[in-house]
């Protein structure tokens, strides 16, 4: 049971950890000041959410949040490849589209977790939901605004969507032993979450010409395996940067 719980919580936490890190890379580089602040703020929230998820494991006597974040072998991470992808050339359309696709999935996931039979997760999900509403409002507003603006904006969003599309669908790759987790009432099946995600984003993307059919199996293959420990080609560089301070000063306190 403990092993399954750890698998589930690490998948949730690691997604938040690296999404937070990637969003934080926009600090000082946002296209306008308000967006700089927005991405910094969202990054801070996501990182805090990762910490709160790790804390559930810590409360069970399993390591500490800092240990989980900074002192783990790459193969022991469970983050989806979507959140590991870099901010390619700092293209804001990619950042916004990733933010939108990811936060839609998170919205669905948290809703499912509020019903979890595992009480610490249900309680935490309820709290995080009340913070994530602002992220979703931000993501949806910008996608709709830019999706209806200039031809260039639309063109950039289309390119971003094409790049991110299979990675976003791969967010719903089933966890190892998922049937046992569903049976225990911890979480809804990933296939159900995926359907809910589609119902959430399709009505937003379709009217602005940004919807697209699901990726084919061939398109999806290279994005899979994340929940089993397969890291994306971008992970090593990401993790080296992420752990730069903790590696040089393992006992640093801040």
């Amino acid at each position: 049971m403990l092993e399954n719980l750890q698998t589930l919580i690490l998948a949730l936490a690691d997604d938040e950890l690296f999404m937070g890190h990637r969003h934080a890379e926009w600090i000082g580089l946002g296209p306008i000041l308000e967006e700089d602040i927005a991405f910094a703020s969202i990054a801070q929230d996501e990182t805090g959410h990762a910490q709160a998820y790790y804390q559930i494991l810590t409360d069970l006597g399993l390591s500490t949040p800092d240990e989980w974040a900074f002192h783990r072998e790459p193969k022991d991470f469970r983050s989806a490849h979507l959140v590991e992808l870099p901010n390619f050339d700092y293209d804001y359309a990619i950042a916004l589209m990733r933010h939108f696709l990811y936060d839609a999935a998170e919205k669905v996931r948290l809703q499912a977790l509020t019903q979890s039979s595992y009480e610490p997760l249900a309680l935490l999900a309820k709290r995080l939901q009340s913070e994530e509403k602002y992220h979703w409002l931000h993501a949806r507003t910008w996608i709709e605004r830019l999706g209806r603006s200039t031809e260039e904006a639309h063109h950039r969003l289309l390119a971003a969507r094409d790049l991110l599309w299979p990675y976003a669908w791969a967010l719903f790759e089933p966890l190892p032993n998922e049937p046992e987790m569903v049976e225990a009432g911890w979480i809804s099946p990933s296939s159900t979450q995926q359907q809910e995600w589609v119902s959430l984003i399709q009505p937003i993307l379709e009217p602005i010409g940004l919807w697209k059919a699901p990726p084919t199996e061939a398109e999806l293959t290279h994005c899979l395996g994340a929940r089993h420990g397969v890291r994306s080609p971008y992970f090593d560089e990401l993790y080296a940067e992420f752990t730069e301070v903790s590696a040089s000063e393992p006992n640093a306190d801040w």
Partner: protein
Amino acid sequence: MSAEEVWALLREVPDPEIPRVSIVDMGMIGEVQVSGGKAQIELIPTFAGCAAVPLMVREIGERLRARGIAAEVRVNYGAAWSPDRIRPEGWKALRAAGFAVPTHLTDDPEALFEDVACPRCGSTATSLLSPFGPTACRAIFKCHACGEAFELFKPPV
């Protein structure tokens, strides 16, 4: 030392991000248990990712230690903080610090951002510039009447 005395000490600890408001008046203190020379204190952050949490934990420990009490602070992320935890003194201090405050409690962020009154001139001819501000619990607004920018204290919804 009694629990009341510990509460009184905690009330002297400022919210690091809005120092005019105490952490007690902000509703961030949950249960307090005192026995012998030890106090167990539950801290409920407004936002889970609040960067000021370690600072508050340290500050609580130091204030109590100065009075001979060992503090054990447990940060409870599972407990939801909500604005109805703010005491009347807390709302008063937020206004005095220059923040606009929500006029009604809601679970809809868009409703929260409607009809926000400018803390300087009182006009509700205001618009949201960004739902995010210098800290997780603030949003940035502009007043069309007096032309000033201001911040709304933004609770989790």
